[in-house]
């Protein structure tokens, strides 16, 4: 037997009330081992209260070469921000 274990992406929730955040990746034979290893590698100093593991191949990523058409359309839509609207200074709570 000589097969390479798949790569897993690891997400950690640092405390309840916060979201899981990507913190890195590791190799493991299966999901249980991925969680065990993630515990040992990424939470040795109480960095987390919950772990998600996802096999890397299940993640679909956007193509950075298409970042222009993907993300630039938002650049000229200043009217989506509150500061676009001009109101008199005396208006409060808005």
């Amino acid at each position, binding site marked *: *037997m000589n*097969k*390479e*274990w798949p*790569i897993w992406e690891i997400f950690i929730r640092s405390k309840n009330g916060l979201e899981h955040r990507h*913190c*890195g*990746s*590791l*190799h493991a*034979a*299966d999901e*249980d*081992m991925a969680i065990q290893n993630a515990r*040992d*590698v990424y939470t*040795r*100093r109480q960095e987390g209260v919950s772990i998600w593991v996802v096999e890397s191949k299940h993640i679909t*990523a956007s*193509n*950075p*070469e298409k970042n222009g058409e993907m993300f630039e359309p938002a650049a000229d839509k200043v009217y989506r921000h509150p500061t676009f609207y001009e109101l008199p200074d005396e208006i409060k709570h808005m």
Partner: protein
Amino acid sequence: MENKTLSLEEQFQNRIDSGENIEAKDWMPEKYRKTHIRQISQHAHSEVVGMLPEGNWISRAPSLRRKVALLAKVQDEAGHGLYLYSAAETLGISREELNEQLNSGRAKYSSIFNYPTISWADMGAVGWLVDGAAIINQVMLTKTSYGPYARAMVRICKEESFHQRQGYEIMLSLCNGTEAQKAMAQDALNRWWWPSMMMFGPRDEDSPNTEQSMKWKIKKKTNDELRQQFVDQTVPQAEILGLTIPDKDLKWNEERGHYDFGTIDWDEFWDVVKGNGLMNEKRLKDRNEAWDEGKWVRDAASAYADKQAEKRAKKTA
């Protein structure tokens, strides 16, 4: 075609110049990719091999307090190796290949680990000096241009500061102990000082890759700048211990605002790099043994995972 390649490289350089990070899927010059695979994997190998000289002392640590600290430090180093291997893998090399490069002796790792750790005081000197030198390099690398490498470095630096403190504490205890204990600490400093100075690599004028590395912001300071920083911060620490740094040319230079120091034995440096250090052979042998002896564990884990997957498949069928 020629023009297009040029413009891609120019765009790439512009991104670097404007302080942007490069991420795994971004276009990058082949040489940038290769340089990173080499540098990150050497760094990872250094963490992994770095466990060996310290692992040597876990069972002989003088107290439980020292033992748990050393054990935790060695465990961190395994983790650091893993962060770095993961960063290297984002550039398209597999873990298997990385492992093979280390175990076959084709890959380099930091020469410092080819020196032997012969007394308990060496655990102090290694933590204080070797980790101290590594931290200087690693803090710089938290700002390196390749995102996955920089992020691994941030995590490593956070964990690393206890390593140096535990080493210095060992030295402090020895220096406050008996004459014989203090002599042990001095002996360790004598043996580890120059190899630690060599950790920053050749002098700038003998380091042909520095210019390109600076341009790509792989490094933000030169070898000599980092070495000077190490000397300046370590000399006062040695004074607090009451130990003497084994360099008769070491002295404060008021004009420069830095310590002047003596000449490094570059013949020794290159000799160890070429594989003739005291421990080169032993380190590789131990690495290979650990890998071979761990095979049944890896195989068992794979077999167990396959069996579990089969069971799950049956359940859902």
